[in-house]
């Protein structure tokens, strides 16, 4: 019941916003977002024990498409609980953060925001693959509007590219899911799209080749959404053009749908495929870490820089996931949250600057530490969180991802054989250095240095007069919870790590065998090749 309420609260808010007068829209949205947060916290309190292995609540939902067994079943485990909590927090922050930034078509804006929240929550809470797809896919519509109506100058192409790119990828995922379901229906005799059903069938009954293609089909969608390096090009554009709150939610929640999908559906569904492809994806992830970081280094636009840094961070996240051991996967899961918090924080801060100075160009800003000390402190804080300073949240995720990658080898100490190993980690660790390089370049350019503020000819207009020079109490108020979460996770990640542990181990349960099998096959193939050559050469 709580979950249904959580799902419907934003929708009801959206409806209320549509009916109420425009000037009350933001207040209704705030109340709605806070209500959703309250319900989510309630759910977290009701959550039986954070270390429960089964989903909660353990009850069947109504079937909505009987002949195909599509069920409206909601449920949470440790990981999705965390995702839900992060999403509701970010929505509150984004809504309040938009008070002054959005002045046109306010009703639509907040209504779409609420719809977006509901979709994201649905995707995180869904236990049915089609339901997950529903939430996953419908986020495109509100996000499309958020970018295309309230975005920057190039908003329309950005929104269209965002929409088509991710849509194309996700229909491929749908094919993958339906394929597995159809094979299962053939085998079992009745259709079901429940994720556990699909997983228990696919991971055991599909052949290696089928698993390979299934995994690939699923990962195409998740890789685009995440996004992985060569298929990332929609992201900088979308981030750059989206309104601040849109960027926050894009980074914090929408990208996480990709990684969450990879964790919830991709990995457990096709262990043989995952094991076979883990090296491939790890290489791509590392490529992303380094290439995106280098691209960040030469960005002039602060927001694009942060957007590319997302790509780099997501590479690290995926590297951890493809380590295929509890350390790396835990790391990547906690990275979900970290990235949402720190990148979200950075986007909000950049948005504040943009509201005041109407520029995101590094060359036009400088020495803001003098005029905006509070803002600068937050900026440095979130930058440090983003570069993974120990004691802040970023570190935990980053270090665990790398850690997992290092021990992900055959005969690993971790007891979970993997396909990567130290060499992957050694190359990925360059990302640590590059991360500091570009983030500090940004901080050096806009926070430090000689004070420099752009000339704005139409100052004294709507924005200039209403906003204080430094952050307003409202703005401080939205940054504080984010900062507090960063600090809390950085210093005491234990509850989160523990709560996610059962889900992680459930997701990985088939992997050790799968990896062993793939490794054995490879060595056999090598041996066969060697013997073939041996017979030929003499």
């Amino acid at each position: 019941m709580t979950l249904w309420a959580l799902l419907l609260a934003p929708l009801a808010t959206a409806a209320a916003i549509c009916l109420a007068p425009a000037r009350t829209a933001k207040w209704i949205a705030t109340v709605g977002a806070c209500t959703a947060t309250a319900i989510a916290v309630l759910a977290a309190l009701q959550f039986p024990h954070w270390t429960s292995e089964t989903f909660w609540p353990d009850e069947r939902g109504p079937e909505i498409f009987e002949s195909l067994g599509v069920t409206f079943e909601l449920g949470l485990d440790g990981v999705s609980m965390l995702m839900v909590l992060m999403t509701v927090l970010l929505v509150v922050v984004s809504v309040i953060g938009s008070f002054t930034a959005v002045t046109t078509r306010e009703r639509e804006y907040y209504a779409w925001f609420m719809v977006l929240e509901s979709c994201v929550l649905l995707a995180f809470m869904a236990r049915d693959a089609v339901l997950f797809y529903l939430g996953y896919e419908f986020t495109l519509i509100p996000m499309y509007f958020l970018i295309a109506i309230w975005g920057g100058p190039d908003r329309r192409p950005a929104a269209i590219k965002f929409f088509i790119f991710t849509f194309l990828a996700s229909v491929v995922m749908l094919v993958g899911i339906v394929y597995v379901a159809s094979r299962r229906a053939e085998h079992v005799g009745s259709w079901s799209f429940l994720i556990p059903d699909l997983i228990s069938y696919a991971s055991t009954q599909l052949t290696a080749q089928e698993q390979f293609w299934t995994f690939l089909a699923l990962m195409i969608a998740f890789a685009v959404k995440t996004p992985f390096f060569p298929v990332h090009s929609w992201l900088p554009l979308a981030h750059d053009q989206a309104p601040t709150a849109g960027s926050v939610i894009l980074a914090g929640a929408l990208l996480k749908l990709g990684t969450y999908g990879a964790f919830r559906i991709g990995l457990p569904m096709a262990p043989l495929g995952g094991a076979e492809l883990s090296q491939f994806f790890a290489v791509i992830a590392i490529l992303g870490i380094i290439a995106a970081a280098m691209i960040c280094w030469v960005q002039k636009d602060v927001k694009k820089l942060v957007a590319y840094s997302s790509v780099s961070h997501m590479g690290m996240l995926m590297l951890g996931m493809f380590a295929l051991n509890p350390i790396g996967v835990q790391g990547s899961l906690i990275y979900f949250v970290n990235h949402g918090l720190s990148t979200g924080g950075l986007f909000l801060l950049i948005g504040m600057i943009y509201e005041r100075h109407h520029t995101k160009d590094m060359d036009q800003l400088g020495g803001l530490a003098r005029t905006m000390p509070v803002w600068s402190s937050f900026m440095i804080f979130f930058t440090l969180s983003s570069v993974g300073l120990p004691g802040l949240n970023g570190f935990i995720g980053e270090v665990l991802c790398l850690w997992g990658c290092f021990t992900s080898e055959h005969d690993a100490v971790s007891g979970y054989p993997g396909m990567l190993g130290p060499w992957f980690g050694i190359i990925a660790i360059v990302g640590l250095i590059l991360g500091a390089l570009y983030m500090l370049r940004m901080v050096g350019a806009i926070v430090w240095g000689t004070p420099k503020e752009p000339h704005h000819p139409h100052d004294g207009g709507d924005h200039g007069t209403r906003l204080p020079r430094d952050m307003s109490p409202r703005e401080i108020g939205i940054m504080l919870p984010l900062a507090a979460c960063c600090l809390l996770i950085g210093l005491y990640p234990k509850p989160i790590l523990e709560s996610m542990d059962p889900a992680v181990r459930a997701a990985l349960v088939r992997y050790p065998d799968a990896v062993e099998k793939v490794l054995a096959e490879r060595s056999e193939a090598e041996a066969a090749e060697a013997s073939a050559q041996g017979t030929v050469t003499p």
Partner: protein
Amino acid sequence: MSMPFAERLVLLVPEMVLLAGAIVVSVMGLSSRGIVRAIVPWATIAALAGSLVAVVMVHRPELAASADLPIPMLGLFARGLLAAIGIGLVLITMGSVDRPLERAFAKGLAPFDPMRVLGGEFHAFMLFSIAGAMLVTVASDLVWLFLAIELSSLPTYIMVATSRGSRLAQEAAVKYFFLGAMSTAILLYGFAMLYGATGSMELLAIEEAMTSGAAESSIAVLGIILVILALGFKITAVPMHFYAPDVYEGAAISTTSFLSFVPKATGLFVLMTVLAAVGWSADAAPASLPPEAGKVLWMVAALTMTLGNLGGLLQRSIKRMLAYSSISHSGYMLVGIVAGPQFGGFDATLFYLLTYGVTNLAVFGAIASIERQGSEIDSFDDLAGLRVRHPWASAMLAIGAASLIGMPPLLGFWGKLDLFAAGLDAGHVVLVVILAVNSAISVWYYLRLIGLPIIAPAGPRTEGLESSPSRFPLLAAVVAGLGTVLLPIMLGSLVDAASVAGPTAIEDASPQAAVTAP
């Protein structure tokens, strides 16, 4: 097997209602009293509603089972759907036929002239055409089938020609009629081949001959392929789709909306019936289609959706774009037919037809509800910033387009999901991937329907736009749009209705059995 003639006739009550309605309507249309003429659309709707009730009442399984039909229960869902969507199509047509004439009559500018009014005939033709489409589903032999197809087709030619005074409508009618005649010839030739191969006009007898191997298979294959291709004209499938963009663009929007649904449904019903008759049915174990025919169907499906979408990308005219969209959706629906009834493919196609029909009503109704100086709009430029003055129409356009994209949780998505499931179940992975990629390509141009009205600022071209005098097109759009959003809630019963029709044998009435038959 056979039954008394009178009892069989009961099965045809819905069509009789429509035909009677058509006669009444055509007479009413000639009345000199404006009020009577104004009732014409309502009488049409009443006929359709009566027909809908009749379908539900008379199409009982035991009756259908004894009517020698290859797909006995197809008639229930198909005829119900035709009647229901037909009501929406009539609503969209409201106020568009004879409008200048009626205005002149009302203002007394011209004396009433029964030779010039078209309203009665137009509505009668709609009813005739729908009646023909309905008859297709209860036809038990090739003669019936042919006559029903012609009953459905011939009125549409006239509807196109008379839908508006524009030259374009007449050009559309030329193209539609001549190419239609050609395709009819091909269809006839195909029927001849089928008859030649099996020696019977009775569909069940054909089925028996085909499955028992008594038929001359080479001639049968030729016949099947000819029938498939000829029906491609009705369902706008490659390579017989070329007329569609021109005709859709040329005809008035109300007629275009009619063309995008009724002939297409007719074609699909005939295709299902004929294919079921040649062995592509769940009760023929195993269901079989001559491999060449299967491959042709596969290719036609793949090409249809691809060419449809590719064409849609380049359009500036809304109706033309919708024509291409309609072509591509035919391609999607053919996937279900390729998958075959034993994997629930026919069910999926029927269900998709429902989703497509409802969604199409929303889009066409929304466009029909806006006009510029009395003539309909047809350019994307007209849509920019529409939401300011026409919020409902733009909302319905957006919802309709999103549903056509296949955006969950709107109705279109569930249809597509069903098609995916059927196609993959039947093992047509490549075809389904082509479908998936195509639905992504289609996003491109549908997104303009979503984006332009809502996102773009109002341009200079939006200034002169006004609502059409009749609010009923918008009503149809809103009802259909709400249906698109809300029908997924009762997805179960809709799919069940479609599933009852699909299985060709009454015994396998449960959908599961058809799907999971090993």
